[in-house]
């Protein structure tokens, strides 16, 4: 009686698959929302700021000062303009028409020629923290570029090379992680509804009246959503490769394995929520709370796990999203072998086993006559 029957699990999986195919909402959530989110985040969240508006006040008016402004403009990171006639440079900052003002002090060329310190003052709009920080990081680059052009002799240069993401493009960094994030949220959300819906509509009584076992039901419900999750990945993968031109450095096989190891705990998390909540509204809220929030904030999608407080570094070990963000970035950009990913694989496998067992145990208790 207490035995698992693949036939029953298959019957449930087929039924569940039909629910999915007939529900435009589920299909849209699984296929269109991820595509939109990836496009949106891929395009809109661009940590690489280019063309930051800035004013150049040249008080030196020498070939050297003009060369300096040319070097800065050529970088593409700032769009330099001269101050409008009759407008003080600070006024432009006030009005938000520029984020920074570069002032080349008089005597710039003379100091350079004499081998002395030549000064350019930079006033930045500190109220826009993000831009100011980025700009500060660029300043060293400007200085280096200007020095190599203008100083005699040129100072020694530190030349950085960024491996795996040569252009240090944040899009390359965001899109793979976005895949992990979207999948984590989606899988938890979709499966969180399934068992709760059966309780709500009363069809759970029908399942109970048959010889169906908790394991049949849990596996029967996992399977179709696993398929749906894979379809989501296919959509995002295609977008990443074509629209965003991402490389794929890793092995597709390793990635597929990681994908399955990741989908199982996410789907099981949703099922556990569903089994516990029994109501779709409650399940939805729990899914948002436990699926969306931690994956958004703690997975390393935005904030690197390494720079979190020690507590979160340890606590996020059980968060499947954390490992899959890592795996995704690795698969697209770096291409490590399965052995390098042993820890993430192990943790994903453990979390999955844990969550399935928890839903089963809880479900058993509910269904026990």
């Amino acid at each position, binding site marked *: 009686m207490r035995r698992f*029957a693949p*036939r029953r699990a298959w019957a449930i999986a087929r*039924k569940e698959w039909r629910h999915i195919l*007939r529900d435009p909402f589920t299909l849209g959530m699984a296929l269109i929302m991820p595509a939109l989110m990836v496009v949106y985040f891929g395009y809109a969240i661009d940590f690489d700021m280019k063309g930051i508006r800035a004013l150049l006040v040249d008080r030196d008016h020498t070939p050297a000062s003009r060369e300096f402004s040319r070097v800065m403009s050529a970088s593409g990171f700032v769009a330099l303009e001269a101050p409008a006639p009759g407008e003080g440079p600070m006024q432009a900052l006030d009005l938000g028409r520029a984020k920074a003002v570069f002032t080349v002090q008089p005597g710039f060329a003379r100091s350079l020629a004499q081998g002395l310190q030549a000064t350019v003052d930079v006033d930045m709009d500190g109220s826009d923290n993000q831009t100011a920080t980025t700009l500060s990081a660029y300043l060293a680059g400007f200085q280096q570029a200007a020095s190599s052009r203008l100083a005699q002799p040129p100072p020694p240069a530190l030349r950085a090379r960024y491996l795996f993401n040569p252009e240090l493009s944040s899009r390359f960094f965001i899109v793979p992680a976005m895949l992990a994030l979207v999948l984590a949220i989606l899988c938890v959300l979709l499966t969180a509804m399934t068992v709760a819906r059966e309780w709500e*509509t*009363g069809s759970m009584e029908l399942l109970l*009246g048959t*010889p*169906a076992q908790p394991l049949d039901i849990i596996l029967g419900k996992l399977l179709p959503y696993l398929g749906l999750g894979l379809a989501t990945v296919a959509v995002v993968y295609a977008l990443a490769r074509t629209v965003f031109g991402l490389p794929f450095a890793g092995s597709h096989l390793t990635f597929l394995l990681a994908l399955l190891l990741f989908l199982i705990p996410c789907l099981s998390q949703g099922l556990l929520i569903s089994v516990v909540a029994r109501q779709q509204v409650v399940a939805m809220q729990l899914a948002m709370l436990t699926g969306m929030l931690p994956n958004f904030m703690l997975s390393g999608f935005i904030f690197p796990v390494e720079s979190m407080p020690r507590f979160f570094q340890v606590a996020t070990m059980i968060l499947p999203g954390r490992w899959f963000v890592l795996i995704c970035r690795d698969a697209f950009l770096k291409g490590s072998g399965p052995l390098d990913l042993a820890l993430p694989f192990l943790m994903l496998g453990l979390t999955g086993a844990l969550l399935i067992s928890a839903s089963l145990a809880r479900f058993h208790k509910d269904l026990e006559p």
Partner: protein
Amino acid sequence: MPAVEARGLVVRFGDFTAVDRVSFSVEPGEIFGFLGANGAGKTTTIRVLCGLLHPSAGQAWVDGVPVEGDLKAVKARVGYMTQRSTLYADLSVDENLAFQAGLRGMSAADLARRRGELFSLIGFAGSGHELVQSLPGGLRQQVSLAQALLHDPRIVFLDEPTAGVAPEARARFWSLIRRLAGEGRTVFVTTHYMDEAEQCGRIALMRDGKLIALDSPLGLKGSTYPRGLVEVDPGAGDWRTRISAESGLSQPRPHGLRWHLEEQREGAWEAFAAAQPGLPPWRRSLPTLEDVFLKLVEGRP
């Protein structure tokens, strides 16, 4: 061997006793009605008998199989149609049946055979491809019944199968119930409709978890109202105010537009009526099941 037997069945949920020492037995082929107010313990009793809930105390058997024993054997013997439709509205009729067959481990050939038999039983003329949500309520209930009968159970539990269904469809559903009983199946049915209860072989009445009466409809009427009833037509109502404790009569209770009351001793009504000028026309009448239900279940005279 009885088809269904309960002995001293008790179900407690925490401090609440939903079913309190209930015993009865149902013969094969019987239409057994289960009546009671909402929350009286009818559904809980049925869930125990279907093997969905273990009793806190007592024992029960379906077709000779103890409900706490081999659940697979229990579930193979009983069909259960719950209060709320258990059909998936977004699936077709055939898909619902195929799902049920898959869970029951039925072969494709068995499914096809039972599908044909059941479609002809309920007179379903559709293709089977129609989505359940597109079916009218009465038909949906009949398909629901077909689903409960798919695995050919000897005993069917129908929990308010006709709630919210049009009268014509209700009548049709009851003709199906009679056909099932005619095939030798035991039908265990709950209802709130007294005209449906009249069609049961025997009726069990539940109140607050206890079984308070169990008899045929006729037997129940006789034992609840040994002296029959007096029915008074509508009209001037001041006679009602003159009924006192000494009159040996129960307080009149509205029955449609008329009034029903009961004698507490032989001849009490004639004695009272003789002294009432302007009393509307009256007659002695047989109680209906509604009278029985109101007196026993709701405790009204």
